[in-house]
């Protein structure tokens, strides 16, 4: 086969593969993604759909029964909150007042956390609390 023709075929095949991968990547990322929502944006949440709930654990809202945890998540800069039920190990930095991210599905009036999906934004190495003077 003519070498130039061979190279063209290789290029077309390679570009086709790249395009297929890119399309699959785009399609699956949109179909598998969970939308990030603050509690105030969950008033129209659909049952069964997974949302990535972000906000702060409301003060005085946390309790647990065995491995089942109950708390409310409120807006970072607001008072709207939703109840969350979560089964799993809580990260060490989890506290009331701390920012959390958790994948949830609506079940009745409660948002049920996906197992092991909760992460807490720790008061990090880059944002230590200020010392008391």
């Amino acid at each position: 086969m003519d070498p130039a023709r061979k190279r063209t075929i290789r290029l077309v095949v390679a570009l086709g593969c790249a395009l297929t991968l890119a399309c699959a990547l785009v399609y699956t990322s949109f179909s598998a993604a969970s939308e990030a929502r603050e509690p105030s944006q969950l008033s129209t949440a659909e049952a069964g759909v997974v949302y990535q709930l972000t906000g702060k654990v409301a003060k005085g809202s946390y309790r647990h029964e065995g491995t089942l945890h109950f708390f409310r998540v409120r807006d970072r800069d607001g008072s709207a909150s939703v109840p969350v039920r979560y089964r799993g190990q809580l990260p060490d930095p989890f506290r009331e007042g701390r920012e959390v991210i958790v994948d949830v599905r609506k079940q009745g009036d409660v948002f049920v956390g996906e197992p092991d999906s909760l992460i807490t934004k720790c008061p990090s190495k880059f944002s230590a609390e200020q010392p008391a003077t």
Partner: protein
Amino acid sequence: MPTAGRACLIIALAICFYGIAASLYGARTGRREVIASGRRSVYALAGVLVVAFAVLEAAFARTDLSFALVASHSSTTTPLFYRLTAVWSSQEGSLLLWVLLLSLWSSAVLFATRRRLREVAPYATAVLLGFGAFFCALLVFLESPFDRLAVPPAEGVGLNPLLRHPSMMIHPPMLYSGYTLFAVPFAFAVGALITGRLGSEWIRRTRPFTLAAWFLLGIGIVLGARWSYSELGWGGYWAWDPVENASLMPWLTGTAFLHSVMIQEKRGMLKVWNVSLVLATGVLAILGTFLVRSGILESIHAFGASTLGIPFLVLIVAMIGGSIALVAARSAALRSEHRLDSLLSREAAFLLNNLVLVSLCFVVFWGTFFPLISEALTGDEASVGPPWFNRYVTPLALVLVLLSGIGPLIAWRRATAANLRRTFAVPTAASLAVLAAVLAAGVTESIGAVLMFCFAAFVLGTVGQELWRGVRARRAMSDDSVPMAAVALVRRNRRRWGGYLVHAGMAILFVGVAASSAFQQARLVELSPGQEVTVSGYTVTYERPRSRLVAASNGRLERIDLGADLEVRRGDGAPFALATYKSYFPSMDPSLGPVSRFFEGEATTEVGLKAGWRRDVWTAVAPDIRRLQERIDEGDRVFRGAEGLSDAQRGAFLAEALRGLTRSYTQDPPPATFRIIASPMVTWIWLGALVVFGGGLLALWPAGAAARRPATAAGLARVARELGRA
């Protein structure tokens, strides 16, 4: 002292500007003394930054709480090792470490090339100093590590307990070394593009630094994974967190470059690809630094509100724009000298390996930045989780491992059928033997894991076969024993054998990843003392609670530990003990009572781990402290009402109260929640990583005189005869 530190940073910034101007002026006029002056300014920068860093380290070592940074990241109860390493736990300190490492590595490369690359080096110097100027400017104008507190506090906040792990404190310098070392090939690539000196010399001269970048970044990534596994209470080592991904991306493109550059050296091909990879790796290294500091993406690693996002974005845009413009301007000079002769050739295998590595990088990039992409396209921020990443990374990793076995077997330019039959027989047999063993053992639940075991066997078969063939060839030329012949063989071509060792290590590492991902069993249970649970054939019994009040070396109360002693047994085997506990560090919030503040501060889980070649048993406890709450509140009330106590009396009473609390926990233990995981072959991950780093070190080690001596024609003929018989 803070003034001295700040002065050092201002001088460092001035040195950067001078060095850039001198290097560019010297390059344009060809005046060597000016170029040398520009180069020496990099040495001066390193010297000044060493002084600045020493000032900060000294402040941390003696817990000088007049430094705002010390007060917010250290304390008198923080052990010395962690006080010294707490410097880079802060935004400001880590930026200082970044630019310090950049200046040190830049000094090393410019010293090594001071009599070579005379046209390229001045531009590379200017680029490296440009990075230096950027970071020094951040430290001078936005994030000063030398801010002072008007009234120093009596006690500092202390190092975040989650970071109190040896590997976590070594992990950042390794990562930053990787990032900053990747700036070296980036800078020389820019220099080569500006001057049009696009041969292989700049690549050869900077290769040790590129390899060192890859090596140190790899160590940093593995240390981070190890920390995650043994310190964070979730039992995993990789979570596809944006910050983890940020370090992986430049490592992937750096790996691709280390492979494809061989094609340029051997055949003069892929010049555009190589220079693009180097530039992309440099950009990704800065992008990683940006991700860690800007807070642009949600991450488990918290980022404080930062003003660094915009400056980093400007730098990244400038790097990308400049890189594209330079490559486009030099596209004619970057044309390949040869074309790919056959798809059955080592060049083709390397090219495919590169495509897989770059695809992996693209997948990681897309998944990491998907929240921003989706928000830009749809107006809604959405993110993808680990299953999405695994869907793409698993097949790509399988292909990558297989290619790392195929690459060394195929001849350059064009492989013949006879060549393929001869070289593929042993690795294929090894692969099939493993497949038979795995199927005989009934391990069929995960096709991906089974394929990974087979491909890893193929890689190990390849490396073993190549070593054996090399030893035979060596012995044909000498009377060496087999071990001596193997040593001599490796010494003669450290780079090649280092690379093979890296391939073997990666194969071992991926076996561990595949097994631990596919066959892990985990349970989350609530147990009272005496109760037991079975996980993957292991019976775990909650023997007894444990608790203690820990004082620092200066006598101040540091933390409270509450946990459990467990007994684990499997069948009739001997039982072994595991201990896990949670450490509670006091909060500095003055509104809290003296007792309750010990339970309202940071906490960190100490994992109970029994590591083994076949399986790890991992456990973490979450104590229930609700039963203590009444006593805690009572303690706070008592202290609130106790006036007229001296600090010493108050401290002694508080210690006694806390001791009573810890005693009550062990005397009347509430049920505790345990996460228990049986993970097969996790140890193989760390072992594989060690082999990889051994290979990296071998490749980095300078070649001896014997390696540089050319082979004689008679010797080559004997080797050819011997290999023909093999």
